[in-house]
């Protein structure tokens, strides 16, 4: 089997096709592990991982923490809330202080795009990007693509739609990179104000017509309106957004086929997706959550295998 090409996971852009397939192969083994009566393996028992969250997170943080615990790693959790960052300490100083406690891998979420790359160049540890501003969220894209393949076997040549707030979504950018590398046809759809101007340069189709796009696709990944990143009004009201771009049973029934529904969470029920759709048999939202742990275990396993015994 080919080796993993990087000592960090900063984004999907830097990964090769072989890297992605390797992650998926290992993840499928871990998926079996986390469905055993005893879900823990001792593989990373001599590895210490720091989870550094400079931005709010629930599911990604829990998913990483569970993945690390299932691998028997030692864990340090850091949240910027109430930390010395508020006393003026720089990011590198904060992280280096944590690394002085002999940390092997850091998992970092930060509001600034490029924060993970910056850390990888300035500290002596493997870095996993758990979301850097509106740039990339590689583990989410990997678990999304893994979940698609698990359900429809092959992603190559399939039509995948990213629907919603593309402009502010790091999930969208990482998904585009990952889906394109795996050979999917990708379309983005949303209000014109929430679609970045030159996004078609990434090789994706652009549409503002939700119904036409849903008819085109095999799988739709519904993205949340990132209100926390919007300092301007990009659409008149949530109600209007829900009417034009919300996925509901009525619009799904009007399609000429059954499509797969995904959502990276957190869900704003009644805005981008209704409860009936989110909880329907077409939805694989909970599969995404379970697969998230397996995919993160695979990534940590691959990165840790590159840290040699000193």
């Amino acid at each position, binding site marked *: 089997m080919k*080796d993993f090409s990087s000592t960090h996971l900063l984004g999907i852009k830097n990964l090769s096709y072989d890297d992605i397939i390797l992650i998926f192969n290992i993840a499928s*083994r871990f998926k*079996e592990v986390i469905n055993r009566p005893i879900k823990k393996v001792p*593989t990373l028992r001599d590895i210490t991982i720091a989870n550094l969250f400079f931005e709010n997170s629930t599911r990604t943080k829990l998913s990483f923490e569970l993945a690390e615990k299932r691998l028997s790693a030692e864990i340090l959790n850091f949240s910027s809330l109430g930390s010395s960052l508020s006393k003026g300490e720089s990011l590198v100083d904060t992280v280096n202080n944590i690394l002085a406690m002999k940390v092997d891998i850091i998992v970092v979420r930060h509001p600034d795009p490029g924060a993970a790359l910056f850390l990888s160049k300035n500290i002596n540890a493997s870095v996993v990007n758990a979301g850097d501003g509106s740039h990339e969220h590689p583990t989410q894209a990997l678990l999304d693509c893994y979940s698609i393949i698990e359900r429809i076997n092959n992603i190559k040549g399939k039509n995948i739609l990213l629907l919603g707030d593309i402009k502010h979504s790091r999930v969208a950018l990482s998904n585009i990179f990952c889906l394109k590398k795996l050979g999917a046809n990708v379309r983005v759809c949303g209000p014109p104000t929430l679609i970045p101007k030159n996004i078609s340069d990434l090789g994706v189709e652009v549409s503002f017509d939700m119904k036409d796009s849903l008819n085109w696709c095999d799988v739709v990944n519904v993205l949340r309106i990132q209100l926390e990143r919007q300092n301007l009004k990009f659409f008149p009201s949530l109600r209007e957004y829900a009417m034009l771009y919300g996925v509901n049973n009525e619009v799904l029934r009007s399609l000429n086929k059954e499509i797969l529904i995904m959502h990276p969470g957190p869900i704003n029920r009644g805005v981008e997706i209704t409860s009936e759709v989110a909880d329907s048999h077409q939805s694989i939202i909970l599969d995404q959550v379970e697969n998230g742990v397996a995919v993160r275990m695979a990534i940590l396993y691959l990165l840790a295998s590159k840290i040699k015994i000193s």
Partner: protein
Amino acid sequence: MNNKVILNSKQISIIIDRLCYQLIETHSDFSNTILIGLQPRGVFLANQIVSRLADITNYNIKYGELDTTFFRDDFRRKKGILTPNETNIDFNIENLDIVLIDDVLYTGRTIRSALDAIGSFGRARSIELLTLINRRFSRQIPIEPKYIGKSIDVFEAEYVVVNWGVENNVILNN
């Protein structure tokens, strides 16, 4: 490199027959027994044993495949990644008798990791080990098989290869 045939296809077939009858002697109707082939190469031997047991008995033999990669003790100590194989154990092993099956027993470290790995599926009543080739005097861990195809004494630098194909054989490379 010199290759020496230790066992040919006919000899392997006779040994597998004997191992099957030894298993029947201990496990009678196999109602409380699960045979587990160890990935990757123990699975070939396990398949042969399960198939032969089906020929000579009408018992329902429970059979699974176990990968021990995540329980190995040489993670980060080898070049490249340790590649896991598939594990297929679809039953609860609680209070059942397990027979681990591998092709060659050498240092005993794989079996040590298998003992840990099988614990993920519950608490077995007993665990036994069956091996086609037992390399004597080379154990690094106090593990010994209960069912042995053939015991051999070879130098550390020599390599034992079990080939499963149209012609089964066991080769000693030195």
